């Protein structure tokens, strides 16, 4: 679905003091995957996120979305419609004074007829479980609700892929849960390809694949189990490993026969109570 081919990106590219944010990154995202990209601030993950829908164009290498290159001006808007993006700050994505008006913004930009826009707005709001709030004012909603409206606004454009750049960073635990559950459901039930960028490890355990970034490159990748087994490397990268995973690893060192890749509390309970 998305191919990133030997991509490098520099900020202030024409400058002497240019900063290389991405170094020769290469990866493929398949349709229907839920990929988590983790890394500390400055690892390049946010820059990478903006490459997927052409908000940023790499100076070296190229990004292909369904075969279309992001640096091809003719495909500009088509790519943005296929790969939607949700950002970190819930407030700074909502532009209308009424929820349904905001969700309609995307389809309106696509020049669709009024009835279709209305249909899509209703459908998208249902998908994120916010249809009851359609006539509400966005500024009165909680952070988690706002993010779900932002997601609905993207869904209304019927993208194939959803990129979320630290969508829960500014939310409280309930908001984080709401957003994660909503997106997981979209991936599971509607086959939406999801790219979830975060530095919360507990969110990455639900992904099909995890990519770990550091200094502009992908330094580790694999299934969540494969990645979290490498707890020493992750800790050197100043990233967390889920507490249960760490516990499993030290208990295994003590001689208990436990797998090295326990991800959830439920798994741990099962493993211990065998």
């Amino acid at each position, binding site marked *: 679905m998305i191919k990133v081919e030997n991509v490098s990106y520099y900020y202030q590219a024409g400058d002497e003091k240019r900063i290389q944010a991405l170094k020769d990154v290469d990866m493929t995202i398949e349709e229907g995957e839920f990929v988590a990209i983790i890394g500390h601030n400055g690892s390049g993950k946010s820059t990478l996120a903006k490459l997927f829908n052409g*908000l940023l164009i790499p100076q070296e290498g190229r990004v292909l979305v369904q075969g279309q290159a992001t640096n091809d001006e003719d495909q500009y808007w088509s790519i943005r419609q296929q790969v939607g993006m949700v950002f970190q700050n819930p407030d700074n994505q909502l532009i209308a004074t009424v929820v349904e008006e905001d969700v309609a913004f995307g389809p309106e*930009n696509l020049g669709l007829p009024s009835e279709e826009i209305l249909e899509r707005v209703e459908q998208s709001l249902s998908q994120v479980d916010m249809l009851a709030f359609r006539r509400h004012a966005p500024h009165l909603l909680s952070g988690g609700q706002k993010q779900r409206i932002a997601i609905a606004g993207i869904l209304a*454009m019927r993208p194939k892929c959803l990129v979320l750049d630290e969508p829960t960073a500014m939310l409280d635990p309930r908001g984080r849960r709401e957003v994660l559950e909503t997106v997981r459901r979209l991936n599971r039930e509607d086959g939406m390809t999801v790219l979830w960028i975060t530095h919360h490890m507990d969110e990455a355990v639900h992904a099909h694949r995890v990519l770990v970034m550091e200094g502009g490159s992908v330094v580790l990748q694999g299934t969540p189990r494969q990645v979290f087994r490498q707890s020493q490397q992750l800790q050197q990268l100043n990233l967390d490993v889920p507490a249960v995973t760490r516990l499993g690893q030290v208990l295994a060192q003590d001689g208990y026969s436990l797998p090295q890749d326990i991800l959830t509390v439920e798994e741990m309970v099962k493993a211990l109570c065998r």
Partner: protein
Amino acid sequence: MFKGITIGQYYPGDSFIHKLEPKIKIGLITAYVVFLFLLDTAYGYLAMMLLTLAVIFIARLPLKLLLRGLRPLYFIIAFTLILHIFFTKGGDIWLQWGRISVHSQGVLTGLMMAWRLILLVTTTSLLTLTTSPIALTDAIEGILSPLRPIGVPAHELAMMMTIALRFIPTLLEEAEKIMKAQMARGADFESGNLIHRAKAMIPLLVPLFISSFRRADDLALAMEARCYRGGKGRTRMRVQKVTGTDWLTLAGFVSVMAVFVWLGL
């Protein structure tokens, strides 16, 4: 604290007034204001007031809401009254203390001016009370569109207004937060002379501006990600067409006004 304030004081409803097309409503208000200045008898004003009250009644708006809207104007109304009472001469002299005199013409004019002011404010607020902010900005965009060929950025203006309206409560909230944070560091926004207080605003305004620019950046990126490319080719989810009823209402209103003027009111 500020969350309770709805900007534009839109009072939702589905009365005849609410359902009138917004551009027509703007036309009606404009006509009202023009005619208010053309009439100059007490009977004329009375007739206009009855018209306004009729609209308030049809729209089922609580009178209290409109009276509350006048509160910020108490001072100006009182000022106008007093100005005319003491300084406009003509007709019989009703009171006299030395240099100061109160003439009948002065009192009359004062009352009429005050009345006109009240009618103006109340009636124009009927527009924002019965029309949602989005409908209003759409209407303004519609009215300005024909001027696009001569360089009026109708769509951009409308978009700016919508975004501004959307962010007013958010910015108010943020201003409150920043104020509290600076107060926690000993900032004093309340005491001192005008210059002192103006200076004290810097720790409030600078962060607010900076965060607004950051918001603008973020918002622009989000809008681009949602395929925004200006007004060309954009459609709207809700389009309200001007119907025969709307035109009839406008025509009817203007006719009634014309009759009033002809009657010499």
